[in-house]
């Protein structure tokens, strides 16, 4: 589906309605405004990378989408306006957010963490989903009874994504999944992420500092600089764009 779109996001009208669309989104913490009216979209089943240097507002964007901070502007998800709604209501509508720091329930076991991912669902299909997820993350099956806090960083990241998948989301928000992980682990992780997107058809909004990895797995990308979108388009084009280099390296 996403391969049908050749035009950059910002300019041409898209063939099908995006699963997520933000228009003129502003957000901040207390008195400080971090996002100054940004707009972007994620296609159904597509992967959009949100790039930017530290402090550009990437994590803030994800938090804004989930109603974790106060926002103004519009957020449309699967045809519905969700700005201003409570976080748990947004989660119930099908957005799964894997926050920075993973958000693992450290005191609970791996199994309990997974059960929480399926909290909103009623029995049907959970077992089948679990099997599929263990297919992506076999190591989790081995560690079911272990306390989640004792897992390695990479395993916790896998657990976090697995938990998010159990929500059967339409949109997956990934906040810096590579953070603090060894390169080999990151490679493995991103391979799995690409597979998930392909096989499950889940749209993904990916916030990543690692530009190369992000653009390898994404089909669209936006560049955020101090709360404003300064470039947007197909992943390949953004990768070649000088503004990305300037944003991260300053020259």
């Amino acid at each position: 589906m996403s391969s049908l779109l050749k035009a950059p996001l910002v300019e041409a009208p898209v063939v099908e309605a995006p699963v997520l669309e933000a228009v003129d989104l502003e957000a901040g913490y207390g008195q400080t405004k971090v996002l100054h009216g940004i707009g972007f979209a994620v296609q159904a089943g597509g992967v959009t990378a949100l790039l930017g240097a530290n402090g550009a507002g990437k994590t803030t964007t994800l938090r804004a989408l989930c109603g974790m901070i106060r926002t103004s502007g519009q957020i449309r998800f699967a045809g519905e306006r969700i700005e201003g709604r409570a976080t748990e209501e947004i989660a119930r509508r099908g957005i799964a957010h894997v926050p920075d720091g993973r958000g693992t329930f450290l005191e609970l076991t791996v199994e309990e963490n997974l059960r929480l991912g399926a909290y909103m669902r009623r029995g049907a299909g959970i077992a089948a989903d679990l099997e599929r997820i263990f297919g992506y993350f076999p190591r989790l099956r081995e560690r079911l009874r272990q306390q989640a806090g004792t897992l390695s960083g990479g395993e916790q990241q896998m657990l976090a994504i697995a938990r998010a998948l159990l929500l059967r989301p339409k949109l997956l928000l990934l906040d810096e999944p590579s953070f603090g992980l060894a390169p080999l682990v990151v490679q493995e992780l991103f391979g799995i992420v690409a597979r998930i997107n392909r096989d499950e058809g889940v749209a993904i909004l990916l916030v990543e500092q690692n530009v190369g990895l992000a653009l390898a797995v994404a089909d669209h990308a936006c560049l955020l600089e101090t709360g404003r979108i300064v470039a947007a388009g197909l992943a390949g084009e953004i990768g070649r764009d000088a503004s990305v280099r300037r944003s991260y390296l300053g020259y």
Partner: protein
Amino acid sequence: MDALLHQLLSGLATGGIYASLSLALVMIYQATHHVNFAQGEMATFSTYIALTLIEAGVPYWLAFVATVVVSFVLGLLIQRVIMRPMEQAPALASVGVFVGLLLVFNSVTGWIWSYTIKSFPSPFEGGRPLLGGFISPHELGSTGVTLLVLGAVYLFFRHTRLGLAMRAAAFNPVSSRLVGIRVGWMLALGWGLAAAIGAVAGMMVAPVVFLDPNMMLGVLIYAFAGALLGGITNPAGAVLGGFAVGVIENIGGAYLVGTELKLTLALLIIVAVLVVRPAGLLGRAVASRV
């Protein structure tokens, strides 16, 4: 030796009551990081409700269940109405609100039902002391009820979906919201459950110490000591601590300090635990890797 065994069993019986209240305290502490100073007064209030029902002719166990339900609802309402705005408040403000609740409950109880000491029936009375004379029917019965309640709470939290959600909301409210858990209502449920447990504790202790508005104040202190001794972050620890304090109180009161200084003993336990090992016997730092 006989006397010691009697003191031990007696201590376990009262310990069960302390354990129940300790559990209630720890449940609220885990979810909100606040200690409900008014837990005892709420339990006393519930016990008086039970007495009113019983005196109106309601059969004991029916009154028991009704009181537990009413207490649950009351606890839930208090969290939703009074405690919610205080969730983010500084320590002094939240402690103050709890103290205020304590005053209100204590005073309203005395206002409605007067300060004269009343007797409260036990469903277990009648008959000779059991187990060779070491334990009274009420002590045995109340221990049984306490263990039943604690067991039910354990099963609820470990093996039900809602119990898991409540634990999750207590540990990590942000992540809980991200999986769709309505954290606010989980807190309210926790308060309701704590109030219900407190009501049971009140109804079990009232036949022994007689009912008056200040009945649970001392019990609350023992429950604090138990929760701290066992580990205020660990429900199992709190329960164990409660039982332990019951035994220590009884044996200490009989052989060491005399019954007059039992509360001081509780105070000493509290100070000793907080100075020597603040996490308590079973509380442990949760292992986590970043």
